[in-house]
């Protein structure tokens, strides 16, 4: 049987949901509480690391395959760049201009609400996606590493 014992598997399959949700919470509330895209993304990736430890790499790869994770990684980066670029097309026409705050939330009292701070929560989402996917990819690639045996065989 692949992976660890049934006890570890059962517990980690419950805990992973909690960790994943905590990661999402950290990302979404990034502009209000400590944390944000990077910290939340690391937590998202760590829920997959827990699965990888408990169930083995193959199980995780079925769940979230390498090409899909790679695409998510690119999409995260693209979203972040797109949010920054959108600033160029609005009022102040400036890169990274917080256009949602300036154009749509300008006269509303929104401080400390979930929907506030304009583009910052959106950027956090993009960073969370990017960091989560790329950290997951790094760990997946490190765990698939095998020493190159073909060189020794030739000698």
């Amino acid at each position, binding site marked *: 049987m692949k992976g660890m014992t049934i006890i570890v598997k059962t517990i980690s399959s419950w805990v992973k949901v909690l960790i994943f949700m905590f990661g999402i919470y950290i990302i979404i509330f990034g502009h209000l509480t400590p944390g944000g895209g990077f910290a939340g993304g690391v937590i998202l990736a760590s829920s997959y690391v827990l699965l990888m430890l408990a169930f083995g790499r193959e199980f995780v790869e079925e769940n979230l395959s390498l090409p899909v994770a790679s*695409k998510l990684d690119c999409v995260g*980066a693209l979203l972040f*760049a797109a949010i*920054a670029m959108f600033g160029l097309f609005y009022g102040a026409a*400036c*890169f990274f*201009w*917080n256009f949602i705050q300036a154009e749509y939330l300008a006269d509303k009292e929104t401080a400390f609400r979930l929907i506030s701070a304009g583009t910052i929560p959106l950027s956090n989402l993009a960073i969370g996606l990017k960091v989560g996917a790329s950290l997951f990819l790094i760990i997946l690639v490190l765990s698939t590493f095998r020493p190159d045996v073909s060189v020794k065989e030739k000698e």
Partner: protein
Amino acid sequence: MTVPLPIFVAVPLATAFLLPVFAKRGKAVATVLANLATVSLLVMALCSIGQTRVYEVGRWSIPLGINLVLDGLSCLLLLAISVVSTAAMLFSVRYMEQYTAKAKYLSLFLLMVGGMNGVVLSGDIFNLFVFLEIASIASYALVGFGCGNEELEASFKYMVLGSIASTFILFAIALVYGNTGSLNMAYISKAIQGSGLNAGLAFALSLFIVGFSLKAALVPFHAWLPDAHPSAPAPISAMLSGVLIKALGVYALVRVLFNVFGISVSMGWILIILGLSSMVAGAFLAMGQWDFKRLLAYSSISQLGYVILGIGLGGLIIAQGGNLAWASLAILGGLFHLLNHAVYKSLLFLTSGSVEMSTGTRQLKQLGGLAGKLPFTRAACTVASASIAGIPPFSGFWSKLILVIAAVQAHFYWIAAIIVFVSLCTLIMYLKVQRYVFLGELPENLQQTKENRGSMLVAMVFLACLCVLMGLLVIIPALRNSILEPAVKVLTDGLEYSTKIIKL
């Protein structure tokens, strides 16, 4: 036309992340998109000639926010980066067919371009470090792109030494921040002018010199370059030798020394000694090489010495309070040589890639007599060799001539003599290349060699034309005043940089 400055960074970065989405099926689409990105960067760089602008990202004013600065020096480097990356990207279209994972290659290439553009545009020293790391990490991966044992070893060596350099630079930035309370280069410069150079700042300055010299591969710090540059695929060698060591090493070093800390007599001498030792040692080491690309890599060290020597000589004259005209002339020579070297060295690396692709080897002793088989590659290689050796109508002659005139006028006759001597050594090593690659007898196994046509040829012809025409940059006053003079002015103005940037 005013291009928003972050576009120079955002376009290559966004395209880089767009490309892997196409996966295997969209290789042609990815190639076209990547070429479009580099060509559009070239057009935008041409549109920005002669402008001096400050861009505050997200409307946060300095020193709170991050600013991007376009001035003469940045513009010169932007031009060099976009010209070389356009040619190298065009060359890759055909050349990279020998490798797998072309989309990944293209996106790493664009990441490197984006990082370099960021380094030359950033007005914030920590941002400069971040972009420097983006460009460096992309280049570590690209050096090992072939995934052979030799490539991986070179890439690892490059990564270790490159990381040491980055660590030095990061330490120096931390020290500067601790001593001046600012990360914006203009404000740091102002704080240093106010308080003078204390022990912490002096230590930071020495860390900067070591870190950036490691990135630029000047002679005591050059160990990684002769392994890393030949191991990379040819277009990447062209990018690394052509612009990466200049944007990350020379530009950053010169910016920090001249505009942030202010040039002093001792710093001038340090630059001159680094330059002279690189010139002489690089030339001697290059002459003994029998690997085509390794010879070119050593020659890069030697040529970079000219750039640093010219700028250092100008800095020394300024610091000694000498005639500003000769200082400007020396710096003009150095910067013009930087631009020339970017063009002809990348052309030489591209021709070496063309020879390697046709014959399967780059050992000079196994080649020969290819003049008839590879006529276009041969012509391009001869133009570039003549240019780098300083034969009159070609571009290299003018920059070396300016350097010699400046050295003589400033009464450094021995430096002028060394410049001429190293130029002679350069001629010898490129005659060796011509003799062993294109002349002599054609070996039996190379009878079937075919010329590379299509995009590779276009890229080589484009750079060869530039090699011939670049002399016009100093001869025609209008061109000189719009491209080279503003860059020289940034350096001769020195510490006035800070007041200018804060005012804008």
